[in-house]
């Protein structure tokens, strides 16, 4: 990738929550425009906190967050770790929400909503209520709600965690496709090393207590990435490298890559 202009940059960011939990300490993270960055790390290492700070949901306790995108061009979409759907609204109305808040009626938004739902393969579930959806379907509604806004910055917090392997890898490919098409800047949190390596320009490895960045692994593989990449030796190599950094963090929940 050529040297791109800056999208977001965190400088020596600390985050201490009101109860005294040090969620982040001295985090430096630079994301160029249009880059796909994954954050991996053990539970509680502050991945969600990083995304929330980027989204402006809470201020850093120390340090600064610098933006390379003007405020008015900064359309941020957030896929939260829990689907966060409105239980009183059906799928269509949930996906409509970001557009409704911008003053667009359901009629005007109809085709955009349908396109977003098609992307996550939710045709036919339009009039269901969240309680009638499976966990994975809820998450896909949440993703559709993020995509419907045509964001410039996409923050995703374990969006595919609740999905089966097949749907996950299909959505991975779809996401990459859309990313190449729309040039989003993506920060993507996952527990899945393979997913992180397959998707990203760069994998940021974090450690807990206190939450910090311990390594960055650049995945030097051109896009579009084909399915063969998943089984290549380069892929395996990257997975092992990320794994090694994670093991250094005392991460307990990941199995070793095959091969």
């Amino acid at each position: 990738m050529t040297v791109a202009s800056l999208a977001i940059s965190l400088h020596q960011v600390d985050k201490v929550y009101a109860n005294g939990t040090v969620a982040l300490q001295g985090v430096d993270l630079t994301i160029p425009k249009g880059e796909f960055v994954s954050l991996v790390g053990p539970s509680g290492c502050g991945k969600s906190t990083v995304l929330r700070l980027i989204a402006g949901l809470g201020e850093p306790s120390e340090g600064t967050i610098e933006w390379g995108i003007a405020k008015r061009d900064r359309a941020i979409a957030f896929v939260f770790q829990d689907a966060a759907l409105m239980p009183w609204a059906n799928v269509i109305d949930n996906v409509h929400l970001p557009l409704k808040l911008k003053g667009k009626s359901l009629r005007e938004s109809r085709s955009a909503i349908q396109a977003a739902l098609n992307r996550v393969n939710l045709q036919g579930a339009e009039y269901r209520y969240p309680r009638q959806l499976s966990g994975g379907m809820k998450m896909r509604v949440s993703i559709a709600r993020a995509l419907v806004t045509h964001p410039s910055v996409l923050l995703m917090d374990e969006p595919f965690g609740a999905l089966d392997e097949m749907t996950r890898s299909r959505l991975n490919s779809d996401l990459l496709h859309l990313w190449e098409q729309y040039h989003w800047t993506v920060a993507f949190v996952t527990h899945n090393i393979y997913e992180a390596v397959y998707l990203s320009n760069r994998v940021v490895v974090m450690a807990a207590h206190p939450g910090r960045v311990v390594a960055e692994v650049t995945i030097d593989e051109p896009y579009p990435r084909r399915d063969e990449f998943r089984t290549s030796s380069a892929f395996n190599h990257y997975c092992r490298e990320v794994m090694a950094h994670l093991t250094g963090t005392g991460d307990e929940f990941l199995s070793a890559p095959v091969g």
Partner: protein
Amino acid sequence: MVLKASPSSPPSPDAAPPSRRAVPASLAKLGSAEVIAPVIVGGVALVAWEAAVRIFEMPAYLLPGPLLVLQTLIAEWPQLFPSLLVTLQITVVAFIAATVSGLLIAIVFTQSKWIERSFFPYAVILQTTPIVAIAPLIIIWLKNSTFAALVVCAWIVAFFPIVSNTTLGLNSADHTLKNLFHLYGASRWQTLWYLRLPSALPYFLGGLRISGGLALIGAVVAEFVAGTGGARSGLAYQILMSSYNLQIPRMFAALALTTVLGVLIFVGLTVVSDRLLRHWHESAVQREN
């Protein structure tokens, strides 16, 4: 989402007796055990009452049997029915006033923590002051319109559960959803309308169900205090007059009407509540698992 327990919030859905949440359904299947069981209990009690009155030859001025009460009710209907309408009117006006004012006050409360902190204690004081004690004052202050005075008394009793429940509901909107609204640049008004009010709906409706009954009680108590002669006299007046004149069966008939009115108000509000929530809220949804 589950209703949180609070002094004035309705029992949590899990604890609620099944007959309560199943009212619309039970209207459809009147033959179900849920309906038959209480009807049998009521029937047996009435028969036992009638039998006891006959066996022990109770004088009607001490305890009339249910048949006599029913006969009296039919015979006195021309006098009792207008009274029922008067009480119903006071109750309904007070209830609507309590609903509107309760909702608005709750919305104002949740716009600022400081407003809530400053004014909520006074809502509590209004609630805990015995209505019997202040009703005479209100009736004197509003001596030009007894109707208005009675409405004010009933309103005082009815509005607190709505304020307190709705305030709780407005404050219990999901945190992540609040973040989402913030992120997409929702105005305060949009957040209120699209997030806080829908979140508060189950709590608000729970408040309504309590307030409906309270409005009736407030109306009857205030009527008692007013003692009222005059043209517009409600059920309490009929109960009072009947007891002065030792027309005990008539008194029972008026009492029965009051009770039936209260039950109808509760059932009506429960049906409305279940209809509004049936798509999404645990208290109204028929789950299959």
